[in-house]
């Protein structure tokens, strides 16, 4: 049975793999329940391979290439509800990009940038890539509401 996994496991990224290690404190992983550990015990930390089988025990979380193209517009509600999206594995002209409107417009800038690069117009490509990243930042800031409060200098002349 695995317990205190946040203390007793660690990973190292090695190319396409992760190396998963179990941390054995003082030679036994059941010793991790104490709240205070004296410095000299640091020398007792050992790494070992996972010593038990855990079904679905390792979980990765991250961004991925998930359903990039879908069959319906992801930005329009369907009868007031979220649209039901089905992935299109072989996209064609009528497939929708599975992104919000702002990011779709960013993709338009990206394609324009690539077309400019193909015609050896690097300045134009740089311009469109700047527009691309600007729209990415816009889209991301749309998800957050930030308030900036700046105190007024009491001796300032207005």
């Amino acid at each position, binding site marked *: 049975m695995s317990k205190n996994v946040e203390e007793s496991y660690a990973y190292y*990224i090695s190319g396409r793999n992760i190396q*998963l290690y179990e941390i054995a404190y003082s030679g036994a992983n059941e010793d991790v329940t104490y709240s205070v550990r004296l410095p000299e015990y640091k020398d007792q930390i050992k790494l070992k*391979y996972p010593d038990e089988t855990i079904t679905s025990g390792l979980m990765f979380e*991250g*961004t991925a290439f998930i359903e990039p193209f879908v069959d319906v517009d992801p930005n329009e509600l369907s009868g007031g509800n979220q649209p039901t999206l089905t992935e299109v594995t072989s996209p064609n002209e009528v497939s929708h990009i599975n992104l919000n409107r702002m990011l779709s417009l960013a993709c338009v800038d990206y394609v324009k940038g690539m077309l400019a690069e193909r015609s050896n117009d690097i300045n134009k490509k740089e311009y469109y890539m700047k527009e691309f990243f600007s729209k990415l930042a816009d889209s991301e800031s749309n998800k957050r509401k930030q308030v900036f409060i700046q105190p007024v200098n009491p001796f300032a002349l207005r």
Partner: protein
Amino acid sequence: MTIQEVMERTGTNETGLVIAWLKDAIHLIQSTYNENVGTWQTNITDGVRDYPIPANLIKIMSISVLDTQEKKYKRIRRMVHQPIMTKDNDPE
């Protein structure tokens, strides 16, 4: 937005190339921001150290291990340096 609309806005009729560029753009977006986040589970096997990173994963946000006592996935720490090995395999 449909691919057709992208092609009309950019003034090109090369569908295959536009789709390839759109995939590149989506990849770049996912690499920059956490736009579409997913999770992948795999088994931990006794005595096995190496586990492949999922093929379609672009940016790792966290790696967790199942705490079977509490039935929760808990984030684990990343080691900055590769551990020093006394042998070429199990460091125990």
